[in-house]
């Protein structure tokens, strides 16, 4: 458990001194070993949790979020090796910046891994606040005017939100001190244990303030406004981490308060609050998805949508829905991380994030193009992937718990969001055979399908003789392909046949969430 925090911290410190290349490899190694460490914690969590030294605690719920974070970290770190080495002459390519990038990335991962490990509400808040600060710097690192704007909005809005969450934490402390005596230190386990005896008003205030505060970081509507900006302007691996892991970690914080509120107030009130926020998020995100021109903004709104699904699923409260929610956290980490990484390759290759200009990506990028399309399909919950399973479970849970209207609305909005994603997906397809044969009229995109296809026919993936040096190599870097492929494999496994250990972990965590453990 300590190693899980020490490894990325060491990598962060090392990144400041090592030459960029070594820092890159150290970070990738750190990411992968963190994933292995997190996976190694699964059996202990299924057996009932673990108490580490100091405030570190671990149960099935936190391990699920650890897995999601560590997986995103491993992918993003490995991908960054390729992303930085192909950065060309702008922004991140400067050596001084690379030091900060690697140090920031590792520190960001470290703080995100720390949050689920903290068995103390105040320290969890500190960890989440550190994630905000570090990631805001990472967003600004790209060095463009838009990145500076996004970073400022992000840090201001998220910090204000977290200030509200801190107020919620203080109310939780007040409630806990009332029930447990003055020596109380905001540790989570005793608070949950005594939750039936907490004063109702304070518990209610704590929960609502926590949902609003941490909800700012989760991206729940109406406090989501920083999210599309930061996600679209950050370097792509950072976007992947922001979306796949950071949102999940913030949702974890909400789930902890949910557990307490459920114990103190009964299930009705906390579920209704989450249901309201979730439906609002889904509705707004689905509408924005329908007409989105920027590929990374589109993915960002898809994140808002999926966080809405998580909130709605938790609001349903049926065991099936909760299992779906937790599976959805894992699937979303893999799928959204994937999609952002794939979008990064596309944006790098085409030099733009505008969807209409990406036409022909499927041909120009023999691996990343199709994989990005698959990731979009996965995000739209197409059947073989993990999100189909999780969303199916959530909807089934909604009908089971009697929230028929909400579940039906969920299905409608999911379809709407899928429509938006698939519209973007079709824009990536080649413009028909005749169009591809002509190729030349499609001047907007530097990667003309015709030219790309001709190159592929020659089988000259490495030879660059064409007039378009930017695209002539096919894939920019193998480092940018393998993580995405790994994500797709994970999604497939989650969708087709989740391993037995994972099932055990999920059902254990559902018991915790229902207060039955």
């Amino acid at each position, binding site marked *: 458990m300590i190693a899980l925090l020490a490894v990325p911290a060491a990598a962060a410190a090392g990144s400041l001194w090592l030459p960029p290349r070594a820092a890159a490899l150290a970070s990738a190694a750190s990411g992968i070993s963190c994933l292995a460490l997190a996976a190694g914690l699964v059996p202990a969590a299924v057996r009932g949790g673990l108490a580490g030294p100091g405030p570190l605690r671990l149960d099935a719920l936190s391990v699920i979020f650890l897995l999601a974070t560590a997986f995103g970290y491993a992918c993003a770190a490995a991908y960054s090796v390729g992303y930085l080495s192909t950065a060309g002459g702008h922004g991140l390519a400067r050596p001084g910046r690379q030091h900060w990038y690697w140090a920031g990335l590792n520190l960001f991962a470290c703080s995100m891994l720390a949050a689920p490990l903290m068995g*103390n509400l*105040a*320290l969890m*808040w*500190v960890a989440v*606040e*550190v994630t905000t*600060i570090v990631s*805001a*710097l990472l967003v*600004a690192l790209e060095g463009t*005017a*838009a990145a*500076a*704007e*996004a*970073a*400022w*909005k992000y*840090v*201001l809005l998220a*910090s*204000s939100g977290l*200030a*509200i969450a*801190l*107020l919620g934490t*203080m*109310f939780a*402390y*007040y409630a806990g*001190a*009332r029930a447990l005596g*003055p020596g109380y*230190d*905001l540790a989570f386990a005793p608070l949950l244990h005594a939750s039936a005896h907490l*004063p109702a*008003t*304070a518990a209610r*205030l704590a929960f609502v303030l926590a949902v609003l505060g941490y909800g700012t970081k989760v991206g729940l509507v109406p406090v989501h406004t920083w999210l*599309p*900006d930061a996600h*679209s*302007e950050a370097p792509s691996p950072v976007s992947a981490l922001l979306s796949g892991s950071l949102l999940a970690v913030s949702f974890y914080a909400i789930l902890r308060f949910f557990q307490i509120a459920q114990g103190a107030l009964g299930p009705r009130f906390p579920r209704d609050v989450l249901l309201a926020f979730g439906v609002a998020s889904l509705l707004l995100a689905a509408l*924005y998805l329908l007409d*989105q021109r920027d590929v990374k*903004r589109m993915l960002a709104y898809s994140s808002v949508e999926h966080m809405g699904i998580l909130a709605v699923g938790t609001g349903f409260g049926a065991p099936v829905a909760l299992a779906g929610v937790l599976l959805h956290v894992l699937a979303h980490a893999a799928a959204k991380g994937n999609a952002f990484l794939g979008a990064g390759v596309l944006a790098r290759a085409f030099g733009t994030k505008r969807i209409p200009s990406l036409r022909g990506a499927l041909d120009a990028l023999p691996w990343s193009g199709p994989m990005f399309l698959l990731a979009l399909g996965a995000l739209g919950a197409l059947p073989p992937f993990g999100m189909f399973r999780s969303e199916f479970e959530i909807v089934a849970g909604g009908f089971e718990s009697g929230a028929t209207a909400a579940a039906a609305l969920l299905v409608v909005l999911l379809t709407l969001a899928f429509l938006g994603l698939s519209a973007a997906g079709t824009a990536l397809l080649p413009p028909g055979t005749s169009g591809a044969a002509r190729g030349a009229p499609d001047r907007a995109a530097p990667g003309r399908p015709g030219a790309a296809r001709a190159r592929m026919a020659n089988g000259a993936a490495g030879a660059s003789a064409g007039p378009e040096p930017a695209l002539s190599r096919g894939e920019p870097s193998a480092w940018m392909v393998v993580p995405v492929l790994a994500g797709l494999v994970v999604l497939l496994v989650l969708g087709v046949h989740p391993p037995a250990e994972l099932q055990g972990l999920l059902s254990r965590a559902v018991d915790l969430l229902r207060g039955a453990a």
Partner: protein
Amino acid sequence: MSAGHAPGVYAGGADVIAVLILLAEFGMLRQALARDQVRLYAAQSGLISALAVIVGAVRGLPELYLLAGLSAALKIMVIPLVLRRLLRAGRVGADLAGPDGDIARSGGMSLASTVLVATAVAAAGFFAASHFTVGGAAAPPAALSLSVSVVLVAFILMIHRRDVLSQAIGLFSLENAISLAALVIAASLPLVLEAALLFDLLVAVIVFGLLIRIHHGRAESLSTTDLTSLRG
């Protein structure tokens, strides 16, 4: 707030300090010079530290003295220092006339209407919060409601002002408001946690400073009116 009897010296003193904190927040809201805004922030932080000392003395929590010292060092010395240095660096901006940083025109609405809105919001927050029976026997009756008012006015400050410095000060004073609430309802929170929260604030200040510098270097101004390219 069902005080059938007069509040004691401690409760009365705490409430007075809370009112002063709210007034300082209003002062920041209407202040025309960034330098004075920073000064008001330092004064507000001083009031928080004073309240921490009082609460520590009355409730017998000696660690609050240490906390008051730490918080005073950070919020009265370090943060205003950082902000003033930024202000000096930002003086070249065309929208910051004069050496003190004239930010009177950075407001989104006219000053009078802003103050009116803030008054209404603060009153609403005060009365809404006083319906919650959270205070407890030991707590001063009005301070918690007042802290909710300060939170809301801080939000108005951040919404109203269109320059990065005021927005940052708004956020820091929001943190002050939460310190006020924490002193009322969570005074006995262990020192380690309080110190962690303060350290976190310190890091946040450094990052805010960095980002303000980046913004200034890029836009040649401290105004946020040109931060409008990301929409939809």
